[in-house]
């Protein structure tokens, strides 16, 4: 089926490792794991998703005729849980989650309709310290997966909203400006703005949106151009967040992007995106969404992000040094009298944390060697009797040893 794919053992292992690393980092920051269903009622999802996102849902009716959908993200289900089953739990609350999400649109995820996300939400905390925590966590999560080169762009949705308030335009032109920006169509934007005779610093800022990137210096440059409270406040918050991220030890990877264009109806404050090397799309994204929880009846500020595991996987496997896949440590073969020894040895090796596969049929030595090659294990242990095994490993002579000694040698302790 187009847009869906199987993850074969090597791919699945890299993806799973990346997911575990990210969840592990989130747990170290005090985020608790929640699991929400693959399916949600469309009534719930529609409280949080915009019209475009709703259109992309896989919808169907269940046996009772209720319209349900496969989740396309998990921030909304988490909001439902926080305002529902967890409504008496104190805020702020730190939650994380992982799992596949689905979209009917093949274009959105580069021809993929099922993708894997890990996300974290910090609910009930407003202010720049919470914003900086979530951005720092996102950065450390990317590091935890093994990505060595990445950068985080931080912006603020209120900077744009303030400009739109201040800019003197008829309502229909304003709607056009929003539409053009959402479509990232700066040619249309320029045309819309050139049709009006009113010129202002805000016009110039809108036209320069794709170029409003940089470090702390850009705050000063932009501050000189905006004359409205909302945008000025956004700039001062960005300054504070930048400072805090420096203290988090992330000064080198963070840039400011005042022209960040995101879903303006959803985000209410600091927003950010993480980029890896040589990939055309953000690998992590998030921001503040203080309006969502109220729609579920528990008004609360909130901020969070998702890491796109598929993209992490792509970058890791394309890196100059792809991640090393753990190998099978031992293939344990047996001949007629060796089965019990083989099963016991397998258990022992696993107890030491090694990966060991025990054969399902008796083999002579030559057959055992062929089987060893086929399963691709590092060592072959061929069990003959309760006291005798043959141990083979690449680049060394085969050794005849009792099983306890083999186990000891493989585990790296002196026999």
């Amino acid at each position: 089926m187009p847009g869906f794919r199987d993850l074969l053992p090597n791919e699945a292992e890299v993806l799973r490792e990346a997911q575990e690393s990210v969840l592990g980092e989130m747990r170290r920051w005090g985020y608790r794991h929640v699991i929400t269903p693959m399916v949600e009622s469309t009534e719930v999802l529609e409280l949080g998703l915009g019209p475009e996102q709703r259109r992309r849902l896989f919808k169907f009716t269940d046996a009772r005729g209720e319209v349900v959908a496969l989740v396309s993200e998990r921030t909304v289900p988490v909001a439902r849980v926080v305002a529902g089953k967890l409504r008496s739990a104190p805020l702020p609350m730190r939650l994380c989650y992982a799992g596949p999400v689905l979209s009917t649109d093949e274009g959105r995820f580069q021809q993929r309709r099922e993708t894997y996300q890990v996300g974290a939400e910090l609910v009930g905390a407003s202010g720049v310290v919470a914003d900086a925590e979530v951005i720092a966590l996102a950065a450390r999560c990317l590091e935890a997966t093994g990505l060595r080169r990445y950068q985080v762009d931080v912006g603020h949705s209120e900077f744009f909203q303030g400009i739109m308030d201040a800019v003197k335009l008829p309502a229909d032109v304003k709607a056009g400006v929003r539409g053009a920006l959402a479509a990232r169509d700066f040619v249309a934007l320029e045309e819309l703005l050139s049709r009006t005779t009113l010129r202002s610093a805000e016009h110039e800022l809108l036209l320069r949106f794709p170029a409003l990137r940089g470090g702390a210096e850009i705050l000063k440059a932009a501050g000189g151009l905006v004359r409205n409270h909302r945008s000025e406040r956004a700039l001062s918050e960005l300054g504070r967040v930048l400072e805090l991220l420096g203290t988090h030890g992330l000064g080198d990877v963070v840039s400011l992007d005042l022209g960040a264009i995101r879903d303006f109806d959803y985000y209410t404050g600091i927003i950010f995106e993480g980029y890896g090397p040589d990939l055309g799309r953000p690998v992590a994204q998030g921001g503040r969404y203080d309006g969502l929880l109220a729609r579920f009846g528990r008004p609360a500020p909130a901020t969070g992000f998702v890491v796109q595991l598929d993209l992490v996987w792509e970058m890791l496997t394309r890196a100059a040094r792809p991640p090393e896949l753990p190998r099978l440590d031992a293939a344990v073969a047996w001949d007629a009298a060796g089965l019990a020894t083989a099963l016991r040895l397998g258990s022992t090796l696993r107890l030491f944390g090694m990966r060991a596969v025990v054969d399902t049929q008796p083999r002579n030595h030559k057959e055992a060697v062929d089987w060893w090659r086929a399963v691709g294990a590092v060592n072959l242990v061929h069990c003959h009797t309760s006291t005798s095994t043959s141990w083979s490993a690449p680049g060394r002579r085969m050794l005849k040893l009792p099983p306890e000694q083999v186990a000891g040698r493989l585990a790296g302790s002196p026999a």
Partner: protein
Amino acid sequence: MKKERVSVALATGALLPGALKILSRAGVARLSGAELGRQLLVDRPAVRVILVRPADVPAYVDHGAADLGIVGKDVLWESPGAHYELVDLRFGDCRLVLAVPASSKLAGPETWPPLLRVATKYPRTTASWFEAHGQSVEVVRLHGSVELAPQVGLVDGIVDLTASGRTLRENKLRIAAILGSSTARLIANQASLKTRTAAVQSLVGRLRAAAEQPARPRAAASPAAKQ
């Protein structure tokens, strides 16, 4: 740094000469259509230029295989994506029109039948334009020689791109409505703008300046490119 070379995807066909001219005027690279047509990928110190089919330019840019692309607005109508549309490069002017047989009674919207049948290579743009104008339409998607369709009675009219109107006249078609005007656009990959800001923005600035300066007479149009 290896990645400081900015890659630009150009479209084959009618826009190619204009695109090469503007790259040269902007002092980015001087390339001949023949060289690019033969190699499809040409590296210069500051840029890599690749040549792809017009409809493929957005795909190359959206996926980050090219940082920038030069492509007709007509292509962008049909395949909106995650790219930034940055500059109107002001060449390759053409219009997307509804054309009907010269003998047809159809003219303005008031003369259209309840269900209009049109053939086009631009199904998405056509459907959304007629929808916005409250007209029911049956779109027949064709891949070439669209002009033929109304002459053999397949459809009431066609929606197609025209620059001079010559092809329409030759096929005894006349323009009944204009759906939009198209020129060449400069599009950019969103991540390229962020992760390689300086190199990409400087190239965008040069191309914008070249597009805004009035085209010089042909004989004089040979600035000594620095690259």
